[in-house]
């Protein structure tokens, strides 16, 4: 073979190696690069990669085949929205999340749509930065779970639909109504510039157990004063104003430390406040506010566990139940810590079974997948 021919063959092989190496990324390469960029908080790169992935494969898909026996959940609009949200592109983020919401898959739709609703609301809140303050205590909530044993001798806390139905009764009103109420309450002021925003998201305030303010000692306690405070406290409790009622009863304890009536009512009010926090958490869950739901449930569980009273059994079971459901649903959305989240959920289920053996999760409000995990643990 002549030298020229040999060199030509060698050069062709080299060119083949170089040219053959030139390869455009596939849709799953771009998608994985986008996800890695999100983990590293490189939002602009993430947007770029997700858009490239969408140029090649427009349809989101669960269990999409890549190469060989490899399958991934392809949710590009969701991740694109995440990146756009963090870049402050709220309008684009809402559009991406809406497109992700429209992705219809019965297995995850229920879980996913809740999370997406929360994200869209966050985006809208960012675009209209005046927070909508809603205080649970300013309404007249009916306790959704009743404390069984701690009943005042003369006055029964109003029983609610929640107690009469099963522990997993639907919230009052449709969840969509809650969104429309929030939408109507949108303020008309122009949004402040981004740099003036100090909090990442606006949260509805949870009822807080306030430390009762000390009342200056009059130097001399009178039975009449204590009775008046007790009467005021009862009236406030009946009106649903648990925090002010707590203040009144605490004031009685300040001036008359051993007052049994005040102590009893203080206990009742504190129970009701715990239940109210729990109710808020449940409300947040059905509204799709998952992070606030988790916060409320954690507070309620901590408060009720600290009380360590049998009267809290039903309420604790309810709290554990919603926490377990929330954790299981989060498990499907967050692959990175999925096993840890699932372990926490199993702990909650174990606690439920310890308190109430034979407990069954009702399928009406939760997906069959969640119910199956409950029944298998």
């Amino acid at each position, binding site marked *: 073979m002549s030298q020229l021919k040999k060199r030509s063959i060698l050069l062709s092989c080299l060119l083949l190696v170089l040219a053959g190496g*030139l*390869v455009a*990324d*596939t849709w799953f*390469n771009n998608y994985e690069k986008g996800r890695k960029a999100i983990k590293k908080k490189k939002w602009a790169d993430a947007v770029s990669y997700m858009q490239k992935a969408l140029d090649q494969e427009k349809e989101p898909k669960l269990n999409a*085949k890549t190469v*060989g*026996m*490899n*399958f991934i959940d392809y949710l590009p609009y969701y991740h694109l929205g995440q990146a756009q949200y963090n870049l402050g592109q709220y309008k684009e983020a809402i559009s991406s999340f809406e497109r992700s919401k429209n992705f219809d898959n019965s297995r995850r739709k229920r879980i996913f749509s809740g999370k997406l609703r929360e994200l869209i609301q966050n985006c809208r809140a960012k675009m209209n930065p005046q927070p909508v303050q809603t205080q649970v205590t300013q309404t007249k909530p009916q306790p959704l779970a009743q404390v069984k044993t701690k009943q005042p001798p003369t006055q029964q806390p109003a029983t609610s639909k929640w107690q009469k139905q099963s522990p997993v009764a639907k919230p009052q009103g449709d969840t969509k109504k809650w969104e429309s109420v929030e939408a109507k309450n949108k303020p008309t002021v122009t949004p402040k510039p981004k740099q003036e925003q100090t909090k990442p998201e606006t949260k509805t305030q949870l009822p807080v157990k306030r430390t009762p303010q000390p009342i200056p000692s009059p130097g001399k306690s009178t039975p009449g004063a204590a009775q008046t405070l007790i009467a005021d406290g009862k009236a406030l409790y009946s009106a649903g104003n648990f925090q002010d009622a707590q203040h009144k009863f605490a004031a009685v304890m300040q001036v008359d430390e051993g007052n049994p009536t005040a102590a009893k009512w203080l206990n009742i009010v504190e129970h009701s406040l715990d239940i109210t926090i729990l109710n808020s958490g449940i409300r947040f869950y059905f509204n799709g506010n998952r992070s606030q739901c988790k916060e409320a449930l954690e507070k309620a569980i901590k408060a009720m566990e600290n009380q360590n009273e049998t009267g809290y059994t039903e309420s604790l079971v309810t709290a554990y139940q919603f926490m377990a459901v929330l954790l299981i649903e989060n498990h499907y959305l967050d692959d990175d810590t999925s096993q840890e989240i699932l372990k926490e959920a199993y702990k909650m289920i174990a606690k439920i079974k310890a308190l109430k053996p034979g407990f069954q999760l009702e399928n009406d409000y939760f997906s069959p997948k969640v119910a199956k995990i409950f029944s298998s643990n």
Partner: protein
Amino acid sequence: MNKSIKLTVILFLLLPLALMGQQEVQNIKISDTTFSGVVGSGARAFGMGGAFISIADDATAASWNPGGLGQLEKPELTIVTRYQNFRDVTPASQGPFDHWGAQDLNTNSVGFDFLAFTYPIRIGNFKIVPQVSYQRAINFNLDSTMNDVFYTGVEWHPEIRDTAVFRGTFNETQNFTGGIDTITASLGFQFFKVINIGASVNFWRNGYEGSFDRTFNGVLTLENHPNFIEPLDFTTSEDLTMDVNGVNYNLGILISILDNLKVGAVYKSNFSADVNHSITVFEEAFVDDEGQVIPVWERSGQSQLEWPETWGVGLSFRPIDPLTISLDMTETRWSKAIIKRFRLPEAEGGEPGGGPPGHVEVDVYFPTFVPTDDFVPDQEKQLDTRQIRLGMEYIFIGRNTLVPIRLGFFTDSQYYSDAAGDQVNFFGFTGGFGVKWRGLSIDLAVIYETGNYLASNQDFTTTRFSEIKSYISTSYSF
């Protein structure tokens, strides 16, 4: 009859029997699918009937279609082991000069089949996919037995003007180890996401060694001497070795016509391999002064093996992501597989009592060792083979676990003809399943192949062939 004549008769009569044994071991009719070097390896592929040319998207890609390597994204390690059992059952047959009882040749083999490591390299927009692999292309790790085969033969001997009749039973055992292996270096590329091409260089090495023992227990009589009855109990042994040394290449291409429709093609080149071989035949009657059995006949030498070329095409379709259906066709030019200058014993050799026959050097077909000259009947000549393979894979997808189910069917024409001169055809079914958990995959495949062919056109006896092979593959992708 005096003693010396008796001995001469015995010796002379035994020799063809001994030489017949040599033909038998080299004439093992094993299915084309035994030659993994022709098709490929891997439990996943075989579970799908071997229809993998247009899929080839795992670490076994280089053995099926190196073009598929360009698709791989992650490093992967695979090891495949194989268990094999085949049976050749021939019913009793009657010829003009002999009568054979039913023959049931049962062969077992277990061992390593394939090992590969793939490491895709991506730097920016560049991707190349190298792979190194080691494959047992032709397995000779076999243990065979054939027991209690009844035989009656008659032979006219003009020198004693009598017809010798021998009756008895044969028992055979064959123990072989080794096989012909390939060490392969492959490279795959991907162009514009849809075109994948690849090439492999295969270094063929090693060979086999083993022994074949045939024991005959019977009697020898002469038709015209009714008082002559001589017991015949002897063992014929052969030791065989064969080593191969050669290089060939594979080229492959795989194109994604649509995201869920792919076509592929592969070409495996022919090549010339140096062959070192030796045969030593022992026969109990031949002993030296110290009573040690000495070789009746031995031959060793170097020849050249012309290994045949293979080409194949395939098509795969994925109607939904978990389901893949594929169809392949492969042809191998076994009519060109020849060993050149192979030493064979002469048909008639030596004076009576003068020692073993001489030998001739001829070209013979591989693996039948039948001479390729024009005097050989057409039905003895080797033929090109074709396989058509159809397969499917359905993957059940769990949270972190995949469970694939696979089924396949194939037709497999053989390189030899039946007694009527028609090409022998087998067919087979495959099934398999596996588990993939995160990066670890374990797959199992079972192949059942069967077929009948006319063994004798005199009494129309039919040989029934059946083979069961199972493969276990373990893969890990990083």
